[in-house]
Protein backbone atom coordinates (compact mmCIF):
# COMPACT_ATOMS: atom_id res chain seq x y z
CA UNK A 1 0.00 0.00 0.00
CA UNK A 2 2.70 2.42 1.09
CA UNK A 3 4.67 1.33 -1.95
CA UNK A 4 1.83 2.19 -4.34
CA UNK A 5 1.47 5.67 -2.90
CA UNK A 6 5.16 6.40 -3.19
CA UNK A 7 5.12 5.12 -6.76
CA UNK A 8 2.24 7.43 -7.61
CA UNK A 9 4.07 10.33 -6.03
CA UNK A 10 7.21 9.57 -8.05
CA UNK A 11 5.26 9.44 -11.29
CA UNK A 12 3.40 12.60 -10.38
CA UNK A 13 6.69 14.41 -9.86
CA UNK A 14 8.27 13.07 -13.05
CA UNK A 15 5.22 13.96 -15.12
CA UNK A 16 5.07 17.45 -13.60
CA UNK A 17 8.69 18.12 -14.50
CA UNK A 18 8.14 16.69 -17.99
CA UNK A 19 5.25 19.08 -18.49
CA UNK A 20 7.41 22.04 -17.45
CA UNK A 21 10.13 20.89 -19.83
CA UNK A 22 7.75 20.43 -22.75
CA UNK A 23 5.37 23.38 -22.39
CA UNK A 24 7.82 25.92 -23.86
CA UNK A 25 8.30 23.73 -26.94
CA UNK A 26 4.59 23.11 -27.35
CA UNK A 27 3.86 26.80 -26.96
CA UNK A 28 6.49 27.63 -29.57
CA UNK A 29 4.89 25.21 -32.04
CA UNK A 30 1.35 26.44 -31.37
CA UNK A 31 2.37 30.08 -31.69
CA UNK A 32 4.32 29.42 -34.87
CA UNK A 33 1.06 28.52 -36.64
CA UNK A 34 -1.16 31.31 -35.29
CA UNK A 35 -2.09 34.66 -36.79
CA UNK A 36 -0.69 37.79 -35.16
CA UNK A 37 -4.27 38.58 -34.09
CA UNK A 38 -4.60 35.31 -32.25
CA UNK A 39 -1.40 35.93 -30.31
CA UNK A 40 -2.40 39.40 -29.16
CA UNK A 41 -5.87 38.55 -27.98
CA UNK A 42 -6.57 37.88 -24.35
CA UNK A 43 -10.31 37.33 -24.13
CA UNK A 44 -10.64 34.56 -24.92
CA UNK A 45 -7.01 33.54 -24.68
CA UNK A 46 -6.20 31.41 -27.72
CA UNK A 47 -4.35 28.16 -27.04
CA UNK A 48 -4.71 26.25 -30.30
CA UNK A 49 -4.74 28.16 -33.58
CA UNK A 50 -8.14 28.10 -35.33
CA UNK A 51 -6.48 27.61 -38.70
CA UNK A 52 -2.89 26.38 -38.82
CA UNK A 53 -1.13 29.20 -40.64
CA UNK A 54 1.54 27.87 -42.95
CA UNK A 55 1.82 31.45 -44.20
CA UNK A 56 4.18 32.18 -41.29
CA UNK A 57 6.59 29.61 -42.62
CA UNK A 58 6.57 31.15 -46.09
CA UNK A 59 7.10 34.64 -44.67
CA UNK A 60 9.98 33.68 -42.42
CA UNK A 61 11.72 31.72 -45.15
CA UNK A 62 11.33 34.72 -47.44
CA UNK A 63 12.90 37.19 -44.99
CA UNK A 64 15.56 34.87 -43.66
CA UNK A 65 17.61 32.67 -45.93
CA UNK A 66 17.43 29.56 -43.77
CA UNK A 67 19.07 27.30 -46.33
CA UNK A 68 22.07 29.56 -46.27
CA UNK A 69 22.11 29.75 -42.47
CA UNK A 70 21.84 25.97 -42.19
CA UNK A 71 24.64 25.64 -44.73
CA UNK A 72 26.88 28.09 -42.86
CA UNK A 73 26.18 26.40 -39.56
CA UNK A 74 26.76 22.94 -41.03
CA UNK A 75 30.00 23.90 -42.74
CA UNK A 76 31.27 25.42 -39.52
CA UNK A 77 30.25 22.37 -37.49
CA UNK A 78 31.70 19.97 -40.06
CA UNK A 79 35.07 21.66 -40.21
CA UNK A 80 35.26 22.09 -36.47
CA UNK A 81 34.59 18.39 -35.95
CA UNK A 82 37.19 17.45 -38.54
CA UNK A 83 39.85 19.71 -37.04
CA UNK A 84 39.03 18.69 -33.49
CA UNK A 85 39.08 14.95 -34.15
CA UNK A 86 42.32 15.00 -36.16
CA UNK A 87 44.40 17.31 -33.98
CA UNK A 88 43.06 15.92 -30.71
CA UNK A 89 43.64 12.27 -31.67
CA UNK A 90 47.25 12.99 -32.61
CA UNK A 91 48.05 15.02 -29.53
CA UNK A 92 45.96 12.84 -27.20
CA UNK A 93 47.91 9.79 -28.38
CA UNK A 94 51.28 11.48 -27.92
CA UNK A 95 50.40 12.69 -24.42
CA UNK A 96 49.08 9.28 -23.37
CA UNK A 97 51.49 6.84 -24.96
CA UNK A 98 54.78 8.47 -25.94
CA UNK A 99 57.63 9.62 -23.73
CA UNK A 100 59.44 12.74 -24.82
CA UNK A 101 61.13 15.74 -23.30
CA UNK A 102 58.86 18.74 -22.75
CA UNK A 103 55.69 16.62 -22.62
CA UNK A 104 54.65 17.60 -19.11
CA UNK A 105 54.93 21.33 -19.61
CA UNK A 106 52.98 21.11 -22.89
CA UNK A 107 50.27 19.08 -21.17
CA UNK A 108 50.12 21.68 -18.43
CA UNK A 109 49.30 24.27 -21.12
CA UNK A 110 46.44 22.05 -22.33
CA UNK A 111 45.01 21.73 -18.82
CA UNK A 112 45.46 25.43 -18.19
CA UNK A 113 43.50 26.40 -21.29
CA UNK A 114 40.58 24.24 -20.15
CA UNK A 115 40.27 26.21 -16.93
CA UNK A 116 40.20 29.71 -18.40
CA UNK A 117 36.87 31.31 -19.37
CA UNK A 118 36.69 31.73 -23.15
CA UNK A 119 35.85 35.44 -23.07
CA UNK A 120 39.42 36.23 -22.18
CA UNK A 121 40.55 35.05 -25.63
CA UNK A 122 37.90 36.78 -27.68
CA UNK A 123 39.22 40.32 -28.22
CA UNK A 124 42.65 39.23 -29.57
CA UNK A 125 41.07 36.39 -31.55
CA UNK A 126 38.77 38.89 -33.17
CA UNK A 127 41.63 41.30 -33.90
CA UNK A 128 43.61 38.46 -35.52
CA UNK A 129 40.63 37.27 -37.53
CA UNK A 130 39.94 40.74 -38.86
CA UNK A 131 43.60 41.35 -39.74
CA UNK A 132 43.52 38.11 -41.72
CA UNK A 133 40.32 39.37 -43.46
CA UNK A 134 38.32 36.48 -42.06
CA UNK A 135 35.31 38.52 -40.97
CA UNK A 136 32.12 37.35 -42.66
CA UNK A 137 33.76 34.21 -44.00
CA UNK A 138 33.33 30.53 -43.19
CA UNK A 139 36.96 30.39 -42.09
CA UNK A 140 36.20 33.15 -39.60
CA UNK A 141 33.47 31.04 -37.97
CA UNK A 142 35.89 28.14 -37.72
CA UNK A 143 38.79 30.24 -36.45
CA UNK A 144 38.79 29.59 -32.66
CA UNK A 145 37.98 25.91 -33.31
CA UNK A 146 41.10 24.77 -35.16
CA UNK A 147 42.36 22.96 -32.09
CA UNK A 148 40.79 21.79 -28.86
CA UNK A 149 42.38 21.47 -25.45
CA UNK A 150 39.31 19.71 -24.15
CA UNK A 151 39.36 17.15 -27.01
CA UNK A 152 43.05 16.52 -26.44
CA UNK A 153 42.33 15.81 -22.80
CA UNK A 154 39.36 13.57 -23.62
CA UNK A 155 41.31 11.45 -26.12
CA UNK A 156 44.34 11.27 -23.88
CA UNK A 157 42.12 9.78 -21.18
CA UNK A 158 40.81 7.25 -23.67
CA UNK A 159 44.25 6.24 -24.96
CA UNK A 160 45.44 5.82 -21.38
CA UNK A 161 42.90 3.06 -20.75
CA UNK A 162 44.32 0.59 -23.27
CA UNK A 163 46.84 -2.04 -22.17
CA UNK A 164 50.49 -1.55 -23.15
CA UNK A 165 50.64 -5.00 -24.78
CA UNK A 166 48.66 -3.77 -27.77
CA UNK A 167 51.42 -1.45 -28.83
CA UNK A 168 54.14 -3.94 -27.97
CA UNK A 169 52.49 -6.47 -30.26
CA UNK A 170 52.22 -3.93 -33.05
CA UNK A 171 55.85 -2.98 -32.62
CA UNK A 172 56.99 -6.59 -32.76
CA UNK A 173 55.04 -6.90 -35.98
CA UNK A 174 57.24 -4.15 -37.34
CA UNK A 175 54.88 -1.16 -37.09
CA UNK A 176 56.56 2.20 -36.48
CA UNK A 177 54.93 4.87 -34.34
CA UNK A 178 52.65 6.50 -36.94
CA UNK A 179 51.56 3.08 -38.19
CA UNK A 180 50.80 1.90 -34.68
CA UNK A 181 48.77 5.03 -34.08
CA UNK A 182 46.89 4.94 -37.35
CA UNK A 183 46.14 1.23 -37.71
CA UNK A 184 46.11 -0.12 -34.18
CA UNK A 185 45.32 2.55 -31.61
CA UNK A 186 43.21 5.24 -33.29
CA UNK A 187 40.51 2.82 -34.52
CA UNK A 188 39.97 1.75 -30.90
CA UNK A 189 38.95 5.23 -29.83
CA UNK A 190 36.05 5.47 -32.25
CA UNK A 191 33.41 6.02 -29.56
CA UNK A 192 35.41 8.80 -27.93
CA UNK A 193 35.83 10.42 -31.32
CA UNK A 194 32.08 10.28 -31.84
CA UNK A 195 31.59 11.79 -28.39
CA UNK A 196 34.05 14.55 -29.19
CA UNK A 197 32.33 15.15 -32.52
CA UNK A 198 28.91 15.47 -30.90
CA UNK A 199 30.25 17.69 -28.18
CA UNK A 200 31.98 19.94 -30.72
CA UNK A 201 28.82 20.12 -32.81
CA UNK A 202 26.54 21.09 -29.93
CA UNK A 203 28.99 23.62 -28.59
CA UNK A 204 29.53 25.24 -31.99
CA UNK A 205 25.81 25.26 -32.72
CA UNK A 206 24.95 26.94 -29.44
CA UNK A 207 27.72 29.53 -29.45
CA UNK A 208 26.42 33.04 -29.90
CA UNK A 209 29.07 35.66 -29.16
CA UNK A 210 31.75 34.58 -31.62
CA UNK A 211 29.56 34.32 -34.75
CA UNK A 212 27.87 37.58 -33.77
CA UNK A 213 31.13 39.52 -33.73
CA UNK A 214 33.09 37.81 -36.49
CA UNK A 215 30.25 37.32 -38.98
CA UNK A 216 27.67 40.04 -38.38
CA UNK A 217 26.43 39.72 -41.96
CA UNK A 218 23.36 37.47 -42.28
CA UNK A 219 24.80 35.89 -45.42
CA UNK A 220 27.80 34.52 -43.56
CA UNK A 221 26.58 33.90 -40.07
CA UNK A 222 25.11 30.98 -38.12
CA UNK A 223 21.54 30.18 -37.11
CA UNK A 224 22.05 31.29 -33.52
CA UNK A 225 23.43 34.67 -34.45
CA UNK A 226 20.80 35.30 -37.14
CA UNK A 227 18.10 34.47 -34.60
CA UNK A 228 19.57 36.98 -32.18
CA UNK A 229 19.39 39.66 -34.84
CA UNK A 230 15.84 38.78 -35.82
CA UNK A 231 14.84 38.86 -32.15
CA UNK A 232 15.81 42.52 -32.06
CA UNK A 233 14.07 43.46 -35.29
CA UNK A 234 10.69 41.73 -35.28
CA UNK A 235 9.84 42.01 -31.64
CA UNK A 236 6.09 42.20 -32.22
CA UNK A 237 5.49 39.42 -34.74
CA UNK A 238 5.45 36.51 -32.32
CA UNK A 239 4.20 33.87 -34.77
CA UNK A 240 7.08 34.57 -37.13
CA UNK A 241 9.62 34.71 -34.32
CA UNK A 242 8.40 31.36 -33.00
CA UNK A 243 8.41 29.92 -36.50
CA UNK A 244 12.04 30.98 -36.90
CA UNK A 245 12.95 29.46 -33.54
CA UNK A 246 11.13 26.28 -34.54
CA UNK A 247 12.89 26.03 -37.91
CA UNK A 248 16.24 26.54 -36.24
CA UNK A 249 15.87 23.90 -33.55
CA UNK A 250 14.05 21.11 -35.35
CA UNK A 251 17.13 19.61 -37.11
CA UNK A 252 19.13 19.50 -33.89
CA UNK A 253 16.26 17.87 -32.00
CA UNK A 254 15.90 15.20 -34.70
CA UNK A 255 19.64 14.52 -34.65
CA UNK A 256 19.54 14.36 -30.87
CA UNK A 257 16.73 11.82 -30.83
CA UNK A 258 18.68 9.60 -33.23
CA UNK A 259 22.06 9.90 -31.53
CA UNK A 260 20.81 10.09 -27.96
CA UNK A 261 23.05 7.34 -26.65
CA UNK A 262 26.26 8.76 -28.08
CA UNK A 263 25.21 12.22 -27.05
CA UNK A 264 24.77 11.22 -23.42
CA UNK A 265 28.06 9.34 -23.48
CA UNK A 266 29.67 12.46 -24.88
CA UNK A 267 28.43 14.65 -22.08
CA UNK A 268 29.31 12.06 -19.47
CA UNK A 269 32.86 11.54 -20.64
CA UNK A 270 33.40 15.19 -21.33
CA UNK A 271 31.94 16.70 -18.20
CA UNK A 272 33.17 19.97 -19.62
CA UNK A 273 31.44 23.00 -20.91
CA UNK A 274 28.14 22.14 -22.49
Amino acid sequence: MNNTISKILVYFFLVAVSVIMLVPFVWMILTAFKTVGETTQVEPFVIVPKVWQTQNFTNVVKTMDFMRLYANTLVMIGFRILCAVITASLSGYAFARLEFKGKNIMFAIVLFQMMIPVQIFIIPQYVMASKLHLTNTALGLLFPGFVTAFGTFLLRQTFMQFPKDLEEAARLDGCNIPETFLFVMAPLTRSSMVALGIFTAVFAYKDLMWPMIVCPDNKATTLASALAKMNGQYSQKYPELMMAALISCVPMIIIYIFFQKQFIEGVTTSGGKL
Partner: protein
Amino acid sequence: MKKKASSRQISEFIWGWLFIIPTMTGLIILNIYPMIDTIRQSFYKTGDFGKGNVFVGLSNYKKVLGDAEVWQALWNTVKYALVEVPFSIVIALVLAVLLNKKLKGRSVFRTIFFLPMVVAPAAVAMIWKWLYNSNFGLINNVLGIKVNWISDPNIAIYSIAVIGIWSGIGYNLVLFLAGLQEVPRDYYEAASLDGANSFQLMINITVPLISPTIFFVLVTRIIGALQVFDLIYMMIDLNNPAWKKTESMVYLFYKYSFQQSKKGYGATVVVVLLAVIMVITAIQLVGQKKWVHYE
Protein backbone atom coordinates in the same frame (compact mmCIF):
# COMPACT_ATOMS: atom_id res chain seq x y z
CA MET B 1 77.99 8.50 -17.52
CA LYS B 2 75.18 9.60 -19.78
CA LYS B 3 73.35 6.78 -21.43
CA LYS B 4 73.06 7.15 -25.15
CA ALA B 5 69.45 7.49 -26.20
CA SER B 6 68.13 4.39 -27.88
CA SER B 7 66.65 4.68 -31.35
CA ARG B 8 63.24 4.02 -29.81
CA GLN B 9 63.63 7.02 -27.51
CA ILE B 10 64.71 9.23 -30.39
CA SER B 11 61.77 8.20 -32.50
CA GLU B 12 59.33 8.71 -29.60
CA PHE B 13 60.76 12.19 -29.15
CA ILE B 14 60.42 13.10 -32.83
CA TRP B 15 56.95 11.62 -33.32
CA GLY B 16 55.74 12.86 -29.97
CA TRP B 17 56.52 16.43 -30.94
CA LEU B 18 55.19 16.02 -34.49
CA PHE B 19 51.91 14.71 -33.06
CA ILE B 20 51.41 17.54 -30.60
CA ILE B 21 52.67 20.38 -32.80
CA PRO B 22 49.31 21.12 -34.49
CA THR B 23 47.48 21.31 -31.18
CA MET B 24 50.20 23.23 -29.36
CA THR B 25 50.68 25.77 -32.15
CA GLY B 26 46.95 26.34 -32.21
CA LEU B 27 46.67 26.66 -28.44
CA ILE B 28 49.58 29.08 -28.23
CA ILE B 29 48.38 31.30 -31.08
CA LEU B 30 44.65 31.12 -30.32
CA ASN B 31 44.63 30.94 -26.52
CA ILE B 32 47.88 31.60 -24.71
CA TYR B 33 48.90 34.65 -26.70
CA PRO B 34 45.34 36.08 -26.61
CA MET B 35 45.17 35.64 -22.86
CA ILE B 36 48.42 37.53 -22.35
CA ASP B 37 47.31 40.16 -24.85
CA THR B 38 43.97 40.66 -23.06
CA ILE B 39 45.78 41.18 -19.77
CA ARG B 40 48.18 43.59 -21.51
CA GLN B 41 45.30 45.52 -23.05
CA SER B 42 43.73 45.97 -19.64
CA PHE B 43 46.61 48.37 -18.91
CA TYR B 44 45.86 50.48 -22.00
CA LYS B 45 43.25 52.98 -22.98
CA THR B 46 41.92 52.15 -26.44
CA GLY B 47 42.83 54.99 -28.81
CA ASP B 48 40.32 56.72 -31.03
CA PHE B 49 40.39 56.10 -34.76
CA GLY B 50 43.89 56.42 -36.19
CA LYS B 51 45.50 56.92 -32.80
CA GLY B 52 47.38 54.22 -30.99
CA ASN B 53 46.57 52.84 -27.59
CA VAL B 54 47.86 54.71 -24.58
CA PHE B 55 49.47 52.96 -21.65
CA VAL B 56 47.56 53.98 -18.54
CA GLY B 57 48.95 51.62 -15.92
CA LEU B 58 46.43 50.57 -13.32
CA SER B 59 43.96 53.32 -14.08
CA ASN B 60 41.49 50.97 -15.84
CA TYR B 61 41.46 48.83 -12.73
CA LYS B 62 40.95 51.86 -10.51
CA LYS B 63 38.10 52.92 -12.76
CA VAL B 64 36.53 49.46 -12.74
CA LEU B 65 36.69 49.25 -8.96
CA GLY B 66 35.04 52.63 -8.67
CA ASP B 67 32.47 51.98 -11.41
CA ALA B 68 29.00 51.47 -9.95
CA GLU B 69 27.85 49.79 -13.17
CA VAL B 70 30.55 47.12 -12.86
CA TRP B 71 29.64 46.42 -9.24
CA GLN B 72 25.97 46.23 -10.17
CA ALA B 73 26.82 43.82 -13.02
CA LEU B 74 28.88 41.67 -10.67
CA TRP B 75 26.01 41.63 -8.19
CA ASN B 76 23.53 40.72 -10.97
CA THR B 77 25.82 37.89 -12.06
CA VAL B 78 26.10 36.60 -8.50
CA LYS B 79 22.33 36.78 -8.00
CA TYR B 80 21.83 34.81 -11.20
CA ALA B 81 24.32 32.16 -10.05
CA LEU B 82 22.82 31.95 -6.55
CA VAL B 83 19.47 30.98 -8.02
CA GLU B 84 20.49 28.95 -11.05
CA VAL B 85 23.17 26.74 -9.50
CA PRO B 86 21.47 25.35 -6.36
CA PHE B 87 18.07 24.79 -7.97
CA SER B 88 19.41 23.15 -11.11
CA ILE B 89 21.57 20.86 -8.98
CA VAL B 90 18.94 19.86 -6.41
CA ILE B 91 16.21 19.21 -8.97
CA ALA B 92 18.58 17.25 -11.19
CA LEU B 93 19.78 15.21 -8.24
CA VAL B 94 16.24 14.25 -7.21
CA LEU B 95 15.40 13.34 -10.81
CA ALA B 96 18.58 11.30 -11.13
CA VAL B 97 17.78 9.30 -8.00
CA LEU B 98 14.25 8.61 -9.29
CA LEU B 99 15.42 7.68 -12.78
CA ASN B 100 18.13 5.42 -11.41
CA LYS B 101 15.46 2.97 -10.23
CA LYS B 102 13.75 0.49 -12.49
CA LEU B 103 10.78 2.43 -13.72
CA LYS B 104 8.37 2.23 -16.62
CA GLY B 105 8.92 4.99 -19.17
CA ARG B 106 12.36 5.82 -17.84
CA SER B 107 13.91 6.43 -21.24
CA VAL B 108 11.00 8.65 -22.29
CA PHE B 109 11.46 10.83 -19.21
CA ARG B 110 15.19 10.99 -19.84
CA THR B 111 14.71 12.09 -23.43
CA ILE B 112 12.34 14.84 -22.31
CA PHE B 113 14.58 16.12 -19.51
CA PHE B 114 17.62 16.28 -21.79
CA LEU B 115 15.79 18.02 -24.63
CA PRO B 116 16.58 21.66 -23.69
CA MET B 117 20.29 20.86 -23.87
CA VAL B 118 20.32 20.68 -27.65
CA VAL B 119 18.41 23.88 -28.30
CA ALA B 120 20.49 27.00 -28.89
CA PRO B 121 20.20 29.51 -26.05
CA ALA B 122 19.20 32.08 -28.65
CA ALA B 123 16.06 30.06 -29.45
CA VAL B 124 15.45 29.20 -25.80
CA ALA B 125 15.51 32.88 -24.89
CA MET B 126 13.08 33.78 -27.68
CA ILE B 127 10.62 31.14 -26.52
CA TRP B 128 10.78 32.19 -22.88
CA LYS B 129 10.55 35.87 -23.70
CA TRP B 130 7.24 35.05 -25.33
CA LEU B 131 6.10 32.87 -22.41
CA TYR B 132 6.95 35.73 -20.02
CA ASN B 133 5.24 38.43 -22.10
CA SER B 134 3.24 40.47 -19.60
CA ASN B 135 0.15 41.07 -21.79
CA PHE B 136 -0.11 38.06 -24.05
CA GLY B 137 2.24 35.54 -22.48
CA LEU B 138 1.12 32.04 -21.55
CA ILE B 139 2.25 32.27 -17.93
CA ASN B 140 0.34 35.40 -16.96
CA ASN B 141 -2.79 34.40 -18.88
CA VAL B 142 -3.00 30.88 -17.55
CA LEU B 143 -2.34 31.93 -13.96
CA GLY B 144 -4.53 35.01 -14.32
CA ILE B 145 -1.84 37.33 -12.97
CA LYS B 146 -0.09 40.37 -14.31
CA VAL B 147 3.60 40.22 -13.52
CA ASN B 148 6.24 42.02 -15.54
CA TRP B 149 8.58 39.04 -15.45
CA ILE B 150 11.38 40.56 -17.47
CA SER B 151 10.80 44.28 -17.18
CA ASP B 152 10.39 44.61 -13.44
CA PRO B 153 13.91 45.43 -12.21
CA ASN B 154 13.31 43.59 -8.94
CA ILE B 155 12.53 40.22 -10.44
CA ALA B 156 13.90 40.19 -14.00
CA ILE B 157 17.23 38.58 -13.13
CA TYR B 158 15.42 35.77 -11.27
CA SER B 159 13.09 35.18 -14.21
CA ILE B 160 16.19 34.77 -16.36
CA ALA B 161 17.71 32.42 -13.79
CA VAL B 162 14.59 30.25 -14.08
CA ILE B 163 15.39 29.79 -17.77
CA GLY B 164 18.93 28.89 -16.76
CA ILE B 165 17.56 26.21 -14.43
CA TRP B 166 15.19 24.90 -17.08
CA SER B 167 17.95 24.50 -19.64
CA GLY B 168 20.60 23.31 -17.20
CA ILE B 169 18.77 20.46 -15.47
CA GLY B 170 19.40 18.00 -18.29
CA TYR B 171 23.12 18.54 -18.28
CA ASN B 172 23.43 18.05 -14.52
CA LEU B 173 21.15 15.04 -14.74
CA VAL B 174 23.40 13.25 -17.24
CA LEU B 175 26.38 13.67 -14.98
CA PHE B 176 24.49 12.58 -11.85
CA LEU B 177 23.12 9.48 -13.58
CA ALA B 178 26.65 8.57 -14.61
CA GLY B 179 27.85 9.08 -11.03
CA LEU B 180 25.00 6.99 -9.60
CA GLN B 181 25.85 4.04 -11.80
CA GLU B 182 29.04 3.58 -9.87
CA VAL B 183 27.25 3.32 -6.52
CA PRO B 184 26.93 -0.38 -5.53
CA ARG B 185 23.35 -1.52 -4.99
CA ASP B 186 24.07 -3.34 -1.69
CA TYR B 187 24.42 -0.03 0.11
CA TYR B 188 20.77 0.72 -0.55
CA GLU B 189 19.59 -2.75 0.28
CA ALA B 190 21.38 -2.74 3.61
CA ALA B 191 20.00 0.67 4.47
CA SER B 192 16.40 -0.12 3.52
CA LEU B 193 16.54 -3.27 5.60
CA ASP B 194 17.41 -1.00 8.49
CA GLY B 195 14.15 0.81 7.80
CA ALA B 196 15.45 4.02 6.25
CA ASN B 197 12.94 5.86 4.05
CA SER B 198 13.82 7.18 0.60
CA PHE B 199 14.53 10.68 1.82
CA GLN B 200 16.94 9.40 4.46
CA LEU B 201 18.51 7.11 1.87
CA MET B 202 19.12 10.05 -0.39
CA ILE B 203 20.64 12.32 2.25
CA ASN B 204 22.68 9.73 4.10
CA ILE B 205 23.72 7.33 1.36
CA THR B 206 23.38 8.82 -2.10
CA VAL B 207 24.68 12.31 -1.52
CA PRO B 208 27.90 11.30 0.28
CA LEU B 209 28.57 8.51 -2.22
CA ILE B 210 28.32 10.71 -5.29
CA SER B 211 29.77 13.78 -3.60
CA PRO B 212 32.73 13.84 -6.05
CA THR B 213 30.24 14.16 -8.93
CA ILE B 214 28.23 16.79 -7.07
CA PHE B 215 31.41 18.71 -6.45
CA PHE B 216 32.39 18.55 -10.11
CA VAL B 217 28.94 19.70 -11.23
CA LEU B 218 28.96 22.48 -8.64
CA VAL B 219 32.34 23.83 -9.73
CA THR B 220 31.60 23.74 -13.46
CA ARG B 221 28.06 25.08 -12.98
CA ILE B 222 29.27 28.06 -10.96
CA ILE B 223 31.94 28.86 -13.53
CA GLY B 224 29.31 28.61 -16.27
CA ALA B 225 26.76 30.72 -14.39
CA LEU B 226 29.29 33.48 -13.74
CA GLN B 227 29.80 33.68 -17.51
CA VAL B 228 26.10 34.06 -18.31
CA PHE B 229 25.60 36.11 -21.46
CA ASP B 230 23.36 34.62 -24.18
CA LEU B 231 20.14 34.57 -22.18
CA ILE B 232 20.55 38.12 -20.90
CA TYR B 233 21.63 39.47 -24.26
CA MET B 234 18.57 37.92 -25.90
CA MET B 235 16.00 38.77 -23.22
CA ILE B 236 16.88 42.32 -22.32
CA ASP B 237 17.00 45.12 -24.87
CA LEU B 238 18.18 48.59 -24.01
CA ASN B 239 14.63 49.94 -23.71
CA ASN B 240 13.93 47.48 -20.96
CA PRO B 241 13.65 49.29 -17.61
CA ALA B 242 15.34 46.31 -15.97
CA TRP B 243 18.52 46.29 -18.03
CA LYS B 244 20.71 47.87 -15.38
CA LYS B 245 19.59 45.27 -12.90
CA THR B 246 20.16 42.37 -15.29
CA GLU B 247 23.33 43.01 -17.28
CA SER B 248 26.00 40.49 -16.33
CA MET B 249 29.79 40.82 -16.29
CA VAL B 250 30.19 39.14 -19.67
CA TYR B 251 27.40 41.29 -21.09
CA LEU B 252 29.29 44.35 -19.88
CA PHE B 253 32.49 43.00 -21.41
CA TYR B 254 30.68 42.51 -24.73
CA LYS B 255 29.18 45.97 -24.59
CA TYR B 256 32.47 47.74 -23.93
CA SER B 257 34.60 45.63 -26.26
CA PHE B 258 32.39 45.22 -29.30
CA GLN B 259 29.59 47.75 -29.14
CA GLN B 260 31.51 50.75 -27.81
CA SER B 261 35.05 49.81 -28.99
CA LYS B 262 36.53 50.39 -25.55
CA LYS B 263 38.58 47.23 -25.74
CA GLY B 264 40.97 48.25 -22.98
CA TYR B 265 38.14 48.74 -20.51
CA GLY B 266 36.38 45.59 -21.73
CA ALA B 267 39.59 43.64 -21.21
CA THR B 268 39.81 44.94 -17.65
CA VAL B 269 36.26 43.82 -16.91
CA VAL B 270 36.95 40.29 -18.16
CA VAL B 271 40.25 40.06 -16.23
CA VAL B 272 38.35 41.03 -13.08
CA LEU B 273 35.79 38.33 -13.84
CA LEU B 274 38.61 35.81 -14.32
CA ALA B 275 39.99 36.77 -10.91
CA VAL B 276 36.56 36.37 -9.29
CA ILE B 277 36.10 32.95 -10.89
CA MET B 278 39.55 31.84 -9.76
CA VAL B 279 38.97 32.95 -6.18
CA ILE B 280 35.57 31.24 -5.97
CA THR B 281 36.95 28.03 -7.50
CA ALA B 282 39.92 28.07 -5.11
CA ILE B 283 37.58 28.47 -2.12
CA GLN B 284 35.60 25.48 -3.30
CA LEU B 285 38.72 23.38 -3.77
CA VAL B 286 39.74 24.10 -0.20
CA GLY B 287 36.21 23.67 1.17
CA GLN B 288 35.63 20.32 -0.54
CA LYS B 289 37.62 18.49 2.16
CA LYS B 290 34.73 19.11 4.52
CA TRP B 291 32.08 17.35 2.47
CA VAL B 292 33.45 15.51 -0.55
CA HIS B 293 34.32 11.85 0.10
CA TYR B 294 36.72 10.22 -2.28
CA GLU B 295 37.14 6.50 -1.92
